[in-house]
């Protein structure tokens, strides 16, 4: 492992269940945090559903994505960036979501993404 520390952005674009990419991306977030990388997350498109609390994942034999998200602040990943347009398109209000949110307008997205060294998409 190199000492080089990069600023990573993990973009989550899929819903928490149905497609297990959400879980795969979270595992990368946890690994990156364990290796002391500087990480941000961005939830957009159906990825915003991951931030809804009270997910009953056990009833579909899945692990709870939201519970894992709640553990990220333990790794100094305290806020979740959210595409406000993706929320509005799904009639979700920020107050319905859990965690410390930073809402980004569509016009702000490009600059935000560009401020990172590496961008991974799940």
């Amino acid at each position, binding site marked *: 492992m190199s000492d080089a*520390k990069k600023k990573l952005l993990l973009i989550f674009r899929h819903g928490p269940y149905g497609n297990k990419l959400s879980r*795969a991306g979270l595992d990368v977030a946890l690994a990156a945090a364990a*290796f002391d990388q500087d990480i941000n997350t961005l939830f957009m498109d159906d990825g915003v559903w991951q931030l809804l609390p009270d997910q009953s994942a056990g009833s579909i034999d899945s692990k709870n994505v939201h519970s894992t998200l709640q553990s990220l602040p333990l790794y100094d990943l305290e806020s979740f960036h959210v595409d406000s347009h993706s929320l509005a398109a799904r009639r979700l209000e920020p107050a319905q979501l859990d965690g410390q949110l930073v809402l980004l307008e569509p016009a702000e997205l490009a600059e935000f993404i560009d401020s990172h060294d590496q*961008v991974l998409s799940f």
Partner: protein
Amino acid sequence: MNFSLLVLSSPYSAQAGDSAWQFARAAVASGHSVYRVFFYHEGVYHGSELGISPQDEQDRVLRWADFSTQNNTELVLCISSAIRRGLLDAGEAQRYDKPASNVHPAFVLSGLGQLIDASAHSDRLLTFGS
């Protein structure tokens, strides 16, 4: 420029693996290098030595293996993605008492740390298949 690639989808259900290979080839042809390809999630199926391609299709496994040899690029299968999908090398087959192994020797099984390391060692890390 030095690239690493993250491949998330299986070779036979999506275009992404082919796009990754085309990108890697074009990058090298343009004088760049590809440090590592990390196969994660469904992408680990790229490492199965037992798949048989129809004669009128390119062998997706062998062409990555050839690319790796020719360009000194590491091919890494995420170990947790791989073993749950039945992609085992000899060591994992022995560890879990399974009757066979099937990972092509051009690929190594390793952890997510190799993806973070690829990020640290590369100018760009590109995602294919999300």
